[in-house]
């Protein structure tokens, strides 16, 4: 009997991010318009495995999901042990552009979720002309914090379990248990302090209030999609952001939380296929 292989292929690419050599892991499938997918804070590219295995998408899109440095199978840069990891607007933007450059992608579509959604807004603000379209999932210009990130990295609390325990509430009750727990499993596997370091961007450095008003959707179309059960980036946060951006397309997804692509792939598909069809033209 032939082996039952998933369609995506995983590889490493060498890229310099701000002059520092990196080895980035990514998975890809399909052909056509490059679609770069950004995982959530403290997670990795496996969140997109259902998208990567969806022939309806991969027949028109070359889907590439990479692990940010420090995440998944992308190692931290040499000397990581001597500092504290902190993601910033600048370093995150540089990592995405470095990956696109290293892979020689021509005007890719970028889709990101959560911190990935927030940075997509920054791409729309600062680098719109380099992208064919931008999709921000669970994104807003700013969100009210709901816990103290100091709990995420300390020796008396298991980092993986507390990260998963916190974000478990962001998953919709309707999401199938198997996908809920796979989503949480990825959170349990993050490196020490990585989720916390990502949230530095989210909480401290990445406030895009006011800045989103400069987004020109005529240069690059922008789509915002947020799950109704996301109480971190609430539908109101996304709608408030959308009201400041002429021409943006916004949708609130029913029965979905903060991790649409991994917590409820079938439901997310209903929402993302029409967006991708519009982008493909």
């Amino acid at each position, binding site marked *: 009997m032939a082996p039952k292989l998933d369609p995506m292929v995983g590889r490493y690419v060498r890229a310099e991010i701000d002059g520092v050599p990196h080895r980035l892991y990514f998975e890809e499938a399909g052909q056509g318009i490059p679609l770069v997918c950004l995982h959530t804070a403290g997670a990795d590219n496996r969140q997109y495995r259902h998208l990567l295995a969806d022939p309806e998408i991969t027949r028109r899109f070359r889907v590439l999901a990479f692990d940010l440095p420090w995440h998944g199978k992308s190692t931290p840069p040499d000397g990581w042990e001597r500092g504290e990891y902190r993601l910033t607007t600048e370093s995150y933007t540089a990592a995405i552009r470095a990956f696109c450059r290293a892979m020689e992608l021509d005007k890719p579509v970028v889709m990101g979720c959560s911190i990935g959604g927030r940075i997509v807004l920054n791409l729309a603000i600062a680098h719109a002309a380099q992208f064919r379209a931008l999709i921000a999932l669970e994104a807003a210009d700013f969100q009210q914090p709901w816990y103290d990130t100091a709990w995420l990295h300390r020796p008396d609390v298991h980092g993986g379990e507390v990260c998963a325990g916190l974000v478990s509430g962001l998953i919709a*009750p309707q999401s199938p248990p198997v996908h809920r727990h796979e989503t949480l499993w990825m959170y349990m596997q993050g490196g020490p302090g990585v989720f916390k370091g990502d949230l530095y961007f989210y909480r401290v450095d990445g406030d895009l209030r006011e800045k989103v008003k400069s987004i020109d959707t005529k240069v690059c179309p922008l789509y915002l999609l947020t799950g109704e059960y996301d109480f971190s980036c609430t539908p109101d946060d996304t709608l408030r952001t959308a009201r400041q951006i002429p021409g943006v397309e916004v949708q609130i997804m029913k029965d979905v939380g903060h991790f649409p692509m991994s917590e409820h792939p079938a439901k997310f598909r209903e929402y993302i296929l029409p967006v991708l069809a519009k982008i493909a033209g």
Partner: protein
Amino acid sequence: MSPADRFAALPDLLSGDPDLRRRGRWLSVDCRVDIGAEPFFLSISDGALAALDRGPQLMRSTAFTFRATDDAWTRYWATIPEPGWHDLFALTKRGAASLEGDLRPLLQNLQYFKDLLALPRQSATGT
């Protein structure tokens, strides 16, 4: 049935959930949960409920307290809770619940506590 009456069934609900007790097996702590105006004192021992004392207890000391309004518990325990009422931190974020005390045992066993306090959902009345 009042929200406090539903919470009073916690010992039976936890007895019927050996997997939750297994996940809490490292945990022994005394804590307090307020259902509206009514306090409950939980003595958790190796993940099992050694005691659940309902109502005010003179000078009882606990590690931490989680309190929420009757309305918040009722919505939280709906079979399919509405968005924004489906998680303990969704409740605290919206101001319908609050936390105080030494939160370390809570954060060390967070999913256990979330699942423990969600057990009355099994007896959802929809009212």
